[in-house]
C-alpha cells in the first residue's frame, strides 16, 4: 500500500528539483491523457483542459517510477568473500549509501536477501546466505534503521545471479551477494 507520507516526500523532492532547476518540468503527455481522461461530453463545445497535476493515477505512476529509480540507485547489491558474511570495504560503501536512503524514507520496509555462490552444500548455504543478510541488517542498525523495517531471508545458492560458474572465480563472486527488495513504501 502506498503511504501518504512517501507521496508527500516524493512530491517535495520533485518540487525541490524544480526549484534548483536540475529537473525538467513534468509535462503532460497527450497520449497518456487521452487514455485516462473521460470522453468529453457532447454538449461541451471546446475540449476541457485536464490538469495532470490532479490526475491521481498519472501522478502515482510518476512517483512509483521515481521511487523505483531511487531504489535502483541507492539499494545496490553488496558482495561478499567466499564462505564469509563479513562486510568488506566496498560493501560498507554501498551500504552507507543505502542506509542514508532508508533514513530519508522512513516508511520504506525492505527485505534483505542473502545469496551464495554454487560452491558448498545447499543446506549450509541457506545458513550462510542468512548470515550475510543479517550482517547487512546489523550494519543498517548502526545508522538507526529500525529492525521492524528490515526483514532478512536467504536464498542460499538457489537463485544465482550468474549460474553455472564452474571454476570462474569472477562469476562466483557475482553470486555471493545481498540484494534488496522493497516490501512497503
Amino acid at each position, binding site marked *: 500500500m502506498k503511504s501518504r507520507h512517501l507521496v508527500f516526500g516524493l512530491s517535495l523532492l520533485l518540487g525541490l528539483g524544480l526549484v534548483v532547476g536540475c529537473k525538467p518540468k513534468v509535462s503532460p503527455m497527450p497520449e497518456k491523457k487521452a487514455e485516462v481522461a473521460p470522453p468529453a461530453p457532447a454538449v461541451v463545445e471546446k475540449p476541457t483542459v485536464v490538469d495532470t497535476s490532479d490526475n491521481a493515477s498519472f501522478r502515482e505512476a510518476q512517483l512509483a517510477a521515481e521511487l523505483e529509480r531511487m531504489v535502483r540507485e541507492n539499494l545496490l547489491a553488496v558482495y561478499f568473500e567466499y564462505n564469509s558474511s563479513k562486510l568488506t570495504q566496498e560493501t560498507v560503501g554501498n551500504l552507507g549509501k543505502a542506509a542514508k536512503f532508508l533514513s530519508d524514507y522512513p516508511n520504506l520496509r525492505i527485505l534483505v536477501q542473502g545469496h551464495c555462490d554454487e560452491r558448498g552444500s*545447499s*543446506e*549450509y548455504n*541457506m*545458513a*550462510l546466505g*542468512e548470515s550475510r543478510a543479517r550482517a547487512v541488517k546489523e550494519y543498517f542498525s548502526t545508522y538507526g534503521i529500525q529492525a521492524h523495517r528490515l526483514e532478512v*531471508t536467504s536464498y542460499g545458492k538457489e537463485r544465482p545471479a550468474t549460474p553455472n560458474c564452474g571454476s570462474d572465480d569472477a562469476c562466483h563472486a557475482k553470486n555471493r551477494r545481498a540484494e534488496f527488495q522493497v516490501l512497503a513504501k
Partner: protein
Amino acid sequence: MQRRLIGLMFLGMTLVSALCAADRVNLEVYASKFDSIPVAILKFKPGASTTALTQNEPWKIIADDLAFTTRFSMYRAPRIDSVAFAQRNIALYIDGDYTIVGDNIELNCLLYEVGTKTLILGKKYQAPLSDIRVVAHRYAADILSAICNERAPFFSKIIFVKDEGKTKTLWLMDYDGANQRKVVSNESINIFPAFMDSTRFVWVSYLRGKPDIYKGSLITGKSDIFSYSRYIQTSPTVSPIDGKVAFASSREGNMEIYTCDSDKSNLRRITTSNAIDISPTWSPNGGQLAFTSDRSGSPQIYIMDRDGSNPKRLTFEGDYQDGASWGPKGDYIAYASLQSGKFDVWTIKVDGTSAQQITNVVGSNEYPCWSPDGTHLVFVCTRGGKSDIFSIRANGTDVHQLTTSGNAKMPDWSLTY
C-alpha cells in the same frame, strides 16, 4: 543371508494361476560358492498375433531389479544354451511369454533350474498394460523372496527437485528412475523434499517470500503450511519411527535444530550452540539425530540424542561436510565431503570409524540418501553445468543414472518397499 527356497507363493497382484513348481530345490550349497547367484534371463516371447514389446519390456525390468538386489548377477541370454550357462555357472534361468489384448497384458513368468529343467517359480499375471512395470517388479520381488527370503524396495519412490529457471518444482519417480512426474508446481522455489511416509512429504517453499516448511499429499495433491516464522525454516526430515519432524530454523536469531510432532505440536529447540546447526537426519530408531554444525570452525557432522543432549563430533577428515543421511540399518551415516573443490559421498560408521569415499564419478557428488534396505544410495552428480540423480551401491559400485534432464537434485528415497 538365508538361501532357502520356499515353495510356491501366491503373492501376485492379479495372479491367475500358479503353473507348477518343484516343492523344494536346495540351492544352499550352490549359492554359497558365489557372492551373487548367476541367473540367465531370456527375452520373453510374444504370443500369436501379439506385437513384440519395444518398451517397458518385463524381462529387462526383472533383470534390472534382480541385479539391483546384489544377490544375483544377471546374464541376458539370447537362448537356452547349456554350454554357455555352464561356463557362467548359471543354475537358474528365467523365461516367459506374453499376450496383449487391447489395453491388457497376460504375462507368464517362469524360473527354471538349468540342470533338471524343473520349474521353480511360475506366475501368470493379467494386468492393464500401463501396470506392466508393477507386474515385473512383483515377479522380481517374488523371486527374491523365494530364493533369498529377502525383500527389496522395488516399489519405493524417490522425490526430488527440478530447477526450472525461476521456479523449482518437486517430482516423483520410481526407484529405478521410471515414471517421473511432477508433484508440486507453483510460481516459487520448492526445495528440500522429504517423505513422511509413502504418500505424504514435507518440503521448503518460498511461497510466502521466505523459506517455510510445507506438508503435501501425493494422494490428494493438497498441501498446507507446516512451520513458519519471520526467519528461515529449512532442511526438514522425518523420523521413521514416530513421524517427528526435525528441521533447522533461525526463528530465535541463530540457525538451530528444532523438532516437533507430525501435527506440529511439541515444538522444541534441541541445539543451543551459537554456531550454525543445520541438516538434521534421524537415526532409524528415532533415538538420535545426526546434523551439521560449524561450531568447530568448519561444517562437520555431529550426532546427538533426540533431546539434543550428548552432542559429539563424528567427522574429522576434510574441512567441509554436510548433508548427512542416517542409514536404515543404523550402523552407517552417509554425507557429502567437499575436498579440492568438489563433493564426494562418503560413509562412516556411527562410532566414527571406517570413513570411506563411496562415489568416484566424474563431477561433484553430493546430497546422499539411503535406499530403504540400506544397500544403495542416491546422490546428485553435477558436471558441466548439469545436475542429475544417480544411484550407487553402498560399496561404491554399480552406478546408475536415474534422471537425464540435467536439472535434478535433492533426492529423498521413501522408506517403503
